[in-house]
């Protein structure tokens, strides 16, 4: 068991109460990996359908392959300190997801691992998440508003910064993913379509929102 915090960092709805200092939100990383792999597998067809509309149609399959690869080594990852575990998970995603999503999601986890402490409190998590978003933006040469996963990551960071509960953070992620529907894609394969990319949700934004909700819920349950 990894202790994610020793204070009120992860007070998700249905989980801990805000401000209940002293409660432990212990993170079972193996359980978190399993939950993430489950949610990606359950939504693989949906992600592929989203990607078929405006991308190259492999996002669901690619993400599923990557997260199953992470799942198959979940115990080894969980045995590491949190920073090293996240870096190793990121590397595994880079090598197994493929497409452009591999480096982007891989960079997110690798950068998070570089910045996070072994027992992060909310301030450390929020700061590390902010750095990880910068790394993803640099890797994809992208920024918020271009119909990418950044359009979910940034609102999630904002919600974390604002002290929202886990459930609120998850809701913010879903809303942000939906908000990519009317956007015009400016990066990635979807950008080749120009205005025709408008009217479809970005697949990477959707998978990011799914993962955010899973993390928020699983950490809540671990408490």
């Amino acid at each position, binding site marked *: 068991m990894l202790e994610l915090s020793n204070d009120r960092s992860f007070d998700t709805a249905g989980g801990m109460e805000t401000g209940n200092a002293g409660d432990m939100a212990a993170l079972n990383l193996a359980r978190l990996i399993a939950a993430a792999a489950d949610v990606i597998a359950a939504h693989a067809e949906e992600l592929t359908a989203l990607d078929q509309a405006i991308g*190259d149609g*492999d996002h669901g399959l690619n993400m599923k*392959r990557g997260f199953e690869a992470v799942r198959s080594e979940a115990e080894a990852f969980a045995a590491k300190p949190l920073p090293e575990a996240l870096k190793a998970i990121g*590397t595994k995603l*880079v*090598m197994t997801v*493929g*497409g*452009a999503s*591999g*480096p*982007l999601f*891989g*960079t997110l986890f690798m950068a998070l691992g570089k910045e996070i402490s072994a027992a992060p409190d909310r301030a450390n998590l929020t700061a590390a998440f902010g750095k990880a978003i910068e790394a993803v933006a640099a*890797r*994809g040469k992208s920024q918020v508003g271009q119909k990418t996963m950044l359009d979910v990551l940034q609102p999630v960071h904002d919600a974390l910064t604002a002290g929202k509960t886990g459930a609120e953070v998850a809701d913010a992620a879903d809303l942000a993913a939906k908000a990519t529907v009317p956007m015009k894609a400016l*990066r*990635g*394969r979807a950008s080749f379509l120009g205005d025709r990319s408008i009217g479809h949700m970005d697949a990477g934004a959707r998978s990011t929102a799914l993962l955010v909700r899973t993390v928020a819920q699983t950490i809540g349950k671990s408490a």
Partner: protein
Amino acid sequence: MSNVGIVIVSHSPLVAEGTADMVRQMVGNEVPLAWCGGNGHGGLGTNVEAIMGAIDKAWSEAGVAILVDLGGAETNSEMAVEMIGEPRSQKIIVCNAPIVEGAVMAATEASGGATLKEVVATARELSPS
């Protein structure tokens, strides 16, 4: 070999191999050369592990220039360079250039013993941007 190496990364293994074939026939064997393409599962795409392998194969102490096609090839190539890490990553540059013309021109420059900087500049001159 002391000449700069060339790596070709395409979403399509056929394009990558064909481009490498053009380099070999038009420039010769004086340049370390490697190619990779495809997602590793039979489809179109690029793959970080394969790119790292190609960089190893074309490695030269003078450095390696990588020619890429579409966006994901560039992202994956930059990821591969980062994962190879220092000090070698300092001598690897991903070129913004048309893949076929860029590879042939870069290899031509490299075959004459040009530096990595010169090789990359030659390829980049072909880019419209």
